[in-house]
């Protein structure tokens, strides 16, 4: 038993080593060399080098690296990174000074405290990203005002004196702190780089570019965003908890909201889009400090004020230049050292759940203010049939799709799938059960390729795509990646875009973009597919291919609910038709019958009387 397990582990390790060798590039040599050189710095005997300042700068870089994940990958403008450093620092300092704890567990508790604070202030991740800026801004001031108001906790203007400690068995000198900080920095950089390249990073990026589209494909918005935010916070808390012992004192003045601002400036200056950006930003701020500090003394200005002015000026400067930061400016030059990663391929295997079921809606009602958008809508879509939902603008078609997909909750009525009541279920749950929805035409992820867009649709079918598993590259997470690619390529082939897999979405034609959206919904392996106006803005010659794709989907036993204005496409693709007007069904039947009826003409043109 144990021998077999050990054998498996050995095989996996050999495979991982093989993959690592395959991915090893010039850039990796440079990075490994830089890290090794960094570890040797204390022993080079450099004149004028203050080890404690250098070590605390590296700790700052750890916190900034974490913030880079929140700001760059998740697109959440956190203004409270310094607050998490402060929470970590004071938790750790209190445990060491008042309870006599050793440094390592105290710092870990600091990380946990920061994590807890991030979960509280991160409840707003479900809202627009601007609200995370609001909540973290409040947190940054709250922490600082708390430290000022409660000297019994913070030590007041003296600060808390932190006793001498050891770190991993060595006396915690600045050099030991520096080495520990550097190892922590390298580990967090490697972990974050892996996460950003993997499924978790792709989903964060999709959520940043178009949250509604990503959510409709089953990406769990709150979980992924909060995961990234909480991880950054824990890293900041850990850095704070360790660095406070290096400083020897936890002084509230060192943790004012300016620290949060400085970390944000470092991230944006270095470039939030790159994993290494924040480190470069911290280094750049440090180098600028070497020049600006003597200047401030020369001008007899208070040092901290001058730093703040310099940081604010740098930030405005970076924003004015487009907001990319140093690393993205260098990217064209750096990309020479990169080579395309080889991708393993496996044959496609469907992971769809078993028995087919029908979608049934009963009495769906929804009002916006005083406007009734849907008034007791009921219908059914059975597996394999294509039903068209038609009606004039404002008749409630898109509202119906939103209620069925879970983007909104109805005021009354039920959404059932087979014998399950999904009225209150979150979108991801519905996607997992097999209800997927495409959005209207203009919804795309502008920074992704066609294949990446479709891979986002695999979110609900992944079991091992979490951040921790990706960062550690567990065997299952690594095995899942090629399977997801195979499924995504299969979905692209179904809409006829397999040749365009690596084309960036903005370079696709508008019809191709629409098909990419359809493929992304198909990649969720739906049983019921809700398609919102696939023909809007599509040329006449592109209608028939579109109808063929829809027919092929239907042949696989997928029930399709097609919201469409274009009656030509409806006639080509649908068998049954439901006509909506003012939120109510006014006609239902086969396309042949209803399509020709007076009711449809009236619904579209209105009952015109001359």
């Amino acid at each position: 038993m144990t021998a077999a397990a050990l054998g498996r582990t050995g095989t996996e390790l050999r495979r991982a080593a093989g993959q690592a060798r395959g991915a090893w590039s010039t850039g990796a040599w440079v990075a490994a060399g830089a890290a090794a050189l960094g570890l040797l710095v204390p022993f080079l005997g450099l004149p004028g080098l203050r080890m404690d300042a250098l070590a605390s700068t590296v700790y700052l870089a750890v916190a900034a690296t974490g913030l880079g994940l929140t700001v760059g990958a998740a697109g959440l403008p956190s203004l409270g990174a310094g607050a998490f450093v402060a929470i970590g620092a004071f938790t750790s300092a209190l445990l060491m000074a008042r309870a006599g704890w050793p440094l390592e567990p105290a710092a870990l508790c600091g990380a946990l405290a920061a994590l807890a604070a991030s979960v509280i202030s991160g409840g707003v991740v479900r809202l627009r990203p601007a609200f995370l800026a609001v909540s973290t801004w409040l947190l940054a001031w709250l922490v600082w005002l708390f430290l000022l108001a409660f000297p019994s906790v913070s030590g007041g203007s003296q600060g808390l004196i932190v006793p001498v400690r050891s770190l991993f068995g060595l006396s915690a000198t600045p050099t030991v702190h520096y080495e520990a900080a550097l190892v922590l920095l390298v580990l967090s950089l490697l972990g974050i780089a892996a996460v950003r390249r993997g499924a978790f990073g792709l989903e964060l990026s999709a959520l940043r570019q178009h949250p509604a589209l990503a959510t409709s494909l089953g990406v769990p918005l709150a979980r992924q965003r909060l995961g990234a935010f909480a991880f950054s916070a824990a890293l900041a808390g850990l850095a704070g908890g360790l660095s406070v012992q290096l400083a020897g004192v936890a002084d509230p003045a060192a943790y004012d909201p300016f620290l949060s601002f400085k970390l944000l400036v470092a991230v944006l200056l270095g470039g939030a889009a790159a994993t290494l950006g924040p480190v470069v930003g911290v280094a750049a701020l440090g180098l600028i400090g070497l020049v600006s500090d003597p200047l401030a003394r020369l001008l007899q200005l208070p040092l901290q004020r001058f730093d703040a002015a310099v940081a604010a000026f740098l930030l405005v400067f970076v924003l004015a230049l487009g907001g990319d930061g140093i690393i993205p400016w260098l990217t064209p030059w750096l990309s020479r050292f990169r080579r395309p990663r080889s991708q393993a391929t496996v044959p496609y295997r469907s992971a769809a759940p078993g028995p087919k079921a029908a979608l049934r809606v009963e009495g769906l009602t929804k009002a916006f203010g005083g406007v009734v958008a849907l008034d007791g809508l009921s219908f059914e879509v059975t597996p394999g049939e294509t039903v068209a939902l038609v009606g004039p603008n404002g008749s409630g078609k898109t509202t119906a799709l939103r209620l069925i997909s879970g983007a909104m909750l109805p005021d009354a009525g039920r959404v059932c799938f087979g014998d399950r009541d999904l009225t209150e279920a979150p979108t991801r749950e519905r996607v997992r059960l097999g209800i997927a929805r495409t959005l209207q035409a203009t919804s795309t992820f502008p920074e992704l390729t066609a294949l990446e867009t479709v891979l986002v649709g695999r979110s609900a079918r992944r079991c091992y795509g979490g951040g921790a598993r990706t960062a550690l590259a567990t065997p299952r997470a690594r095995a899942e990646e090629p399977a997801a690619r195979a499924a995504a390529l299969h979905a692209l082939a179904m809409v006829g875009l397999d040749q365009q897999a690596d084309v960036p979405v903005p370079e696709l034609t508008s019809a191709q973009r629409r098909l990419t959206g359809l493929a992304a919904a198909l990649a969720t392996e739906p049983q019921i597919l809700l398609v919102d106006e696939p023909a809007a803005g599509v040329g006449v010659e592109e209608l028939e291919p579109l109808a063929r794709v829809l027919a092929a989907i239907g042949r696989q036993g997928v029930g399709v609910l097609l919201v469409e204005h274009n009656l030509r496409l409806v006639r080509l693709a649908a068998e049954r038709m439901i006509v909506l007007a003012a939120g109510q069904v006014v006609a239902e039947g086969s396309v042949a019958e209803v399509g020709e009826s007076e009711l449809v003409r009236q619904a579209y043109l209105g009952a015109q009387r001359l």
Partner: protein
Amino acid sequence: MTIALQVLISGLAAGGVYGLFAAGHSLIYRLTGIVNFAFGDLVGLGIFATLLVLAGTSPVTQAGAHEPRFLLALVVGLACCVGASVATYFGLVQPYLARGSTIGWVAGTVAVAFAIRAAIGAVFQRSSYVFPDPLPFHRVGHAGFVGIGGAQVQARAFFVIGLALALALGSAWLLERTPFGRALRAVADDDEGARIVGVPVDLFVGLAFGLVGALAMIAAIAAAPGEAVSANTGTLLGLKGLVAALAVRFGPPLYAFVAGLVLGVLEAAIANVHLGGWQLGPAYREVLPLLFVLLLISIWPSREALEERE
């Protein structure tokens, strides 16, 4: 009873100022969907510009202001506050709003906030300053304090409450009754629609940035001589305005104003009121409302909020 009256009046005076900041935050959010993190500091800039013209950077006594000099100082201060606010909108908010870059305007307004704090700190290097009083409140009652029902209340408090109410109601009238106000409400409802019917949206929103800054600054100046002012004064006022505006979910500006009044009274109550043997004390005054609102916004409902982006 005595303490309750004292808490109520001093709380309302502080709350009136918070209320104008809250109304400003709320109006700006409804117009643009952004939160101006530099709001408080832009007003702080105006306060310190006024102080600079009025008294320079040296310490002064509270009774030092001469009227003509004060008017000049107030005009200079208002010009600084309004000018910097409008410049912030056109330089660091509008371009990123147009591009849909949240991080752009967030970072931009925060940069302005810290730049102003740094500038104030560089010119006014002492930790706090007395703001000279243009009105002779120190001659009223006992050195500026009057007794009501046994309570000792700053005479200035009544002036601040009245002024804040007048400013709030005046701006409500402006929003309801004037073409400029109607245009702003149209922008708040649907900025694209307003643009199409010919409202110069950017210009009007820029003016609104300046206007809310001016209103908040007048109230802050009226209250300023009552307490020491520092580089934190503006920042904290902006923060409290934000707290009050969030408490009413960026509702109509008048609601936000009322929330500001409530916040002021609440702060005074937290600091002073004993319930039996139980008292929170001044240390909790700033911390508790912030914590409460932080928890409040984390449970805001969200499903529908997302749909706007589709």
